[in-house]
């Protein structure tokens, strides 16, 4: 079966697919892509990063970044919006290195992948590359309800909204021996939680900065958005980067170069700002592995 063939280079796979399905074979570029098309996977239903716009097309920060990367490499971007499985490991297997008998072969590169040393140790089939921003767990607080500069202990007696099964959710359920637990209201997404904040169903929302800022949109200035002292939180910020199959080193190197260039010339920052979100440069020093 197709999935069991051990591929040395992704390019071999591309040629195989192209011959089989379209009959087209393009000359191999420096990035190791032969079809002229760079296939991206990005999470569906994930504003402001990647989602299907009203016109049916993929849209968002990650989608714009994908297009910018492809352009830099002289390739056309094919962006597939994908379903987030139970864990990142599943997503990497299905969308990056192996594929799935229902969803088909993997993409060349996946966006919005945490750049984390522990992941790198565990996932030897993946190259984690090109961190492009730092994601932060922040609190957006309503000063009309909480006054200025509220502390986390404010939620011993005030309602706070979170997206379910997130760091914010897990932290607040356990923090201070459960004293906040009964004031945590659960929503299916950050936009839903922000709607509750605007309606004053909650006094604050805890979650990822970019999603919160973008969901607040024009109301952003009415809320205090920032890092809060959160004693005992397991992780309050991490970088996001790209995932490429480990065997595809040529593509990894090209994408790293392209991303550096897009960060340095302000393209990435502009994309974030376009979606009403502030930009935070990755904490990791971007090192390229030596050939």
């Amino acid at each position, binding site marked *: 079966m197709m999935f069991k063939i051990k591929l040395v280079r992704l390019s071999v796979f591309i040629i195989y697919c192209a011959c089989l399905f379209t009959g087209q074979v393009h000359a191999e570029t420096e990035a190791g892509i032969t079809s002229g098309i760079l296939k991206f996977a990005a999470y569906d239903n994930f504003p402001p990063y990647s989602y299907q716009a009203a016109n049916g097309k993929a849209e968002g920060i990650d989608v714009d970044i994908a297009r910018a990367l492809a352009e830099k490499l002289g390739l056309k971007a094919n962006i597939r919006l994908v379903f987030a499985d139970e864990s*990142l490991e599943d997503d990497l297997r299905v969308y990056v290195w192996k594929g*799935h008998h229902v969803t088909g072969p993997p993409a060349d590169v996946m966006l919005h992948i945490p750049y984390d040393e522990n992941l790198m140790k565990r996932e030897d089939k993946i190259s984690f590359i090109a961190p492009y921003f730092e994601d932060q767990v922040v609190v957006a607080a309503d000063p009309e309800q909480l006054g200025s500069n509220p502390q986390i202990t404010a939620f011993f007696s005030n309602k706070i909204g979170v997206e379910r099964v997130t760091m914010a959710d897990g932290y607040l359920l356990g*923090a201070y021996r459960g004293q906040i637990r009964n004031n945590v209201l659960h929503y299916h997404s950050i936009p839903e939680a922000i709607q509750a904040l605007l309606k004053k169903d909650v006094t604050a929302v805890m979650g990822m900065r970019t999603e919160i800022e973008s969901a607040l949109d024009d109301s952003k200035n009415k809320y205090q958005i920032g890092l809060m002292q959160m004693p005992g939180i397991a992780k309050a910020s991490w970088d996001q980067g790209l995932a490429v199959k480990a065997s595809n080193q040529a593509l990894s190197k090209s994408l790293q170069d392209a991303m550096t260039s897009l960060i340095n010339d302000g393209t990435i920052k502009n994309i974030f700002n376009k979606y009403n979100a502030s930009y935070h440069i990755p904490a990791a020093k971007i090192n390229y592995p030596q050939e």
Partner: protein
Amino acid sequence: MKYISGACDSGFLKSITIAGALIALPMSSSAAGVTAEDIINDATTTGDVVSYGMGTQGQRWSPLAKINDKNISSLAPAYTFSFGGEKMRGQEAQPLVHNGVIYTTASYNRVFAINAETGMQIWKYEHRLPEGILPCCDVVNRGGALFDNLFIFGTLDAQLVALDTATGEIVWKQSLGDFKAGHSSTAAPIIAEDKVIIGVAGGEFGIVGMLRGFDAKTGKLVWERPTIEGHIGTLNGKPNGMTGKLNATWPGDLWKVGGGAPWNSGTYDHETKTIMWGTGNPAPWNSHMRPGDNLYAISTIAVDPDTGKIKWHFQYTPNEAWDYDGTNHTVAFNKGDKKLASHADRNGFFYTLDRTNGKLVNAFPFVEGHSWATSIDLKTGRPIEAGKRPGNPAESADGKKGSVITVSPSFLGGTNWMGMAYGQNTGLFYIPANEMGMDLWNEPVTYKKGAAYMGAGFSIKPLFDDYIGVLRAYDPMTGKKAFEVKNKGPLWGGVMATAGNLVFYGTPEGHFKAIHSKTGKELWSYNTGSGIVGSPITWEQGGEQFVAVPSGWGAAVPLWGGEVAKQIEGINQGASLVVFKLY
């Protein structure tokens, strides 16, 4: 998302291969249709199998004895029907038979109607799955329900579809949820009087479990019953009372996202007019975040078929912490004048309840590995835990892996989705069990959809060198084990008992076996060519007794890594229905 309604409403592909497909639908087919009475009497009528569980009580028992312990050596294949195409994967169905036609689901939500005597295809239905769907645990389906002239089954993209039994064309379909939010359906629906009842899968994604009753004839939704306390049920579109009592056993608003998915099939007991359905684990996974019993997760709920009201419940694992779904079938049977029901739980204990009120009658372990609890307190029904609860992540919040506990059963359970059988001639339950344990720890930084959260790590391992799977026969009243038959790989298919002193079951190695129902002695075995994860049936036709079993390796088993995977290496895929009779 815009495309859900578009793609799902227009995207179904019918593939009809009946000769003369242009014939108008037979409007007077009800004469030959399956009646509510046929279904209620299914366990005693030998000429058909018109319900999941071979009778709505779920005993998987047949009074047929033409094939028996004396002549079983003459049992041989009558034919093999290939589910064919390029689509193989796991075949977890239990077929149905009516009027000489076998109706069965197959992988990728296909349905086949097959001439039961010749094995020739009558029609085939192929459900077109929407783009982007990612089924959690292979592309299995566990079977359908027959009612009147309809074959009704659930799909991976959370639809309930009713096909015309004569043509395979869609008569009605209903949504069971949004597959993009994790809703899905793999279990066989059941018929309770004139309703078709089905749960929904997707507990992994924190959805709230829901049981629904539809008018089987028209597909009109009659009632909904959420499985988690605090949620309001409906009857004919109107509120019909809360499940449980708000915040009685759940803190804060966690009940809103509390899990409890009834993802397996239930049973229906006509004698007490009660549906009995098992519910899945609560969310979030770590029990310290949701102090309380977390009703009605990990429970059997007994539901009125007309209104969807809960009559009683029994919870197997309060404040569940190990992913021991309580979704196993609750099988109704009588002992003298006692109306009982038994349930072999994923937590490794076998429970017998009074099915008129849910009171515990007896409970004992059916696996060696049950280190999470020593026993069940017969007075309270609660487990005596053995101090193997995963730790509180808030107490080790330094971002490092929490301490590892080794516990059994594994989260795949002492048994899993597959149905056990009850021998009316022996009074024994035949349980397809697995002996596995797991290492389990808090993983304070786990990623999902690009974001960190406090998750868990686990690794599954066999408990014994020589076997994982084991078919065990128990007396439900005494807890005495009559016999056991070990198997190298894990057992993942259903069991059937017959009056011919036989118990049939399949193995992942591909062998379909018959053992003596009193001694467990192996009397017959046939190599079907691929692993068996489906459920066998038997019926008689033209004076002969037939036995059928789906063969086709897949389902959740091959997804596990580690040491368990070594036991199942080298099993080839296949996709067929093998039908046997005496020669």
